[in-house]
């Protein structure tokens, strides 16, 4: 009886934890708002800013309401446009904003994939300053790169997928509205998956990283030379230089554990370890033969 009373709460706890884990798992393809420009609680937003929200998956905009409230709580007249290629909803105020605290409500949108449902919207507050943003940002470009391999559980496929994780270190930037309001656009300029591709492909638009690092994940199906570059963009659409600086790394295909290979893979020279393994095996064989010979000798006698 006591064992039952102990097990029952444990079982209930396990079920609850299991439910919690399921409830918190990233939904498959749901177009939640995953980044807003400016971010929540931003200061120093220029009065001529344009606003944007990025959705995690392709979405359908059906004229859902977007509300921008000024410091008095009144509605600000805005133009709203959804950019399907960028999965981004953009809001342009009809006139320059007044200084003070504003609130902007981004709507949840329905996913292109019907099973994805409606994503989560976002409500952000920010403070508008009085000075206009007049000049584009300056940016030194990416400064360095690291890579790693991650085995991510895909919520759509419910399986583990190998991904190369590139950590891109971001160089110095400046803007007349401050760097915290900048967005960072990262591009892959050399891709081992499509070595003949001439045009850099965009990997994402990121809020300016406070720690100076962004992560880009790519399928770990093709290894080799991989390069990235990035530019900065401010809230009025000004674009920096710095995109000419590429950071590159050479990835390797998993698995990484090589073990004690006897023969080098085709097309590769034998590594120092290969010879030593051969010697080791030969040595072990010789040792065993010697023991066998010793063992056989008395029998022969």
């Amino acid at each position: 009886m006591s064992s039952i009373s102990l097990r029952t709460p444990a079982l209930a706890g396990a079920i609850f934890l299991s439910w919690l884990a399921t409830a918190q798992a990233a939904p498959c393809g749901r177009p939640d708002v995953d980044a807003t420009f400016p971010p929540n609680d931003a200061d120093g937003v220029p009065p001529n800013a344009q606003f944007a929200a990025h959705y995690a998956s392709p979405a359908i905009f059906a004229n859902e309401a977007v509300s921008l409230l000024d410091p008095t709580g009144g509605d600000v007249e805005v133009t709203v446009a959804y950019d399907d290629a960028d999965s981004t909803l953009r809001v342009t105020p009809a006139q320059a904003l007044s200084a003070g605290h504003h609130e902007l409500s981004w709507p949840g949108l329905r996913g292109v994939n019907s099973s994805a449902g409606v994503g989560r919207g976002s409500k952000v507050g920010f403070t508008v300053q009085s000075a206009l943003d007049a000049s584009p940002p300056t940016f030194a470009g990416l400064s360095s790169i690291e890579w790693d391999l991650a085995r991510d559980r895909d919520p759509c496929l419910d399986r583990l997928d190998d991904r190369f994780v590139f950590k891109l270190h971001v160089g110095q930037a400046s803007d007349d509205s401050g760097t915290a309001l900048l967005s960072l656009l990262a591009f892959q300029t050399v891709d081992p998956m499509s070595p003949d591709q001439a045009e850099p492909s965009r990997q994402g638009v990121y809020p300016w990283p406070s720690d100076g690092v962004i992560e880009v994940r790519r399928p770990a199906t093709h290894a080799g030379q991989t390069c990235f570059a990035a530019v900065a963009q401010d809230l009025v659409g000004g674009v920096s230089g710095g995109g000419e600086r590429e950071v590159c790394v050479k990835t390797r295909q998993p698995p990484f554990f090589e073990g004690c290979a006897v023969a080098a893979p085709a097309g590769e020279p034998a590594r120092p370890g290969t010879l030593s393994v051969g010697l080791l095996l030969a040595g072990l064989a010789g040792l065993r033969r010697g023991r066998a010979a010793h063992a056989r000798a008395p029998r022969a006698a």
Partner: protein
Amino acid sequence: MAAVLLLCVVACARTGLYPGELGEPGEQSDVDLGAGETSSGGSGAVSNAAGKPSGGAPIMKPPPTSGMSPVSIGGMSSVPVGDPPTCMPSPEACNGRDDDCNGAVDDLPAQACPGGGSRFCVAGRLSECPRRCDVCVAGSVRVCQNSFCSFWGEQECAADGQGFGNCREAQPPPECRATAKKFENSKQLEQCCLDNGYCCLDQHDLDGDGDRGEMLGACGDIACQ
């Protein structure tokens, strides 16, 4: 013999390491557990924009030509090295040079794309116009065929839209059941898939373009363009 054996064991322990993998002194050089070139800290082969190696096997592309050295007319050098640098401004172009001599290379506005989004000047050339996903819309499903049981399957797109999962067996819809039973994994079954309004993997190259990895049919909610 024991000495030879010891030598072999020590050498064997190095097997699997590439030259440079151990990194420089002071860097982590733990046994890699699925990471790149080095360690558990996640620092694989690292390179920086100055081209200086910082462990692993760094690779840096040469920096693009600066319009500031030694004399640039639209980015073209024309004065011997050693003279004080000057710059002759010309309209900035996407070419990896500081044509307008403002100290920034390729600081050009974004160019709007016809289908939405913008192109940016990166690495001395314009980026491609963005698409709403890499390979497929996350969570969308296309039809595939397999060579056993029902001969009909489904492939779901990964959450990051970067590829499809495996072809999971499924029951064919009623309108294709007889075709699947009679022709199994075949052109006829793929045609039936198309005729009934599905998005279908072109395993049998029905359009004759040699691409058996593309999708045909009603793929508007699945494809990236």
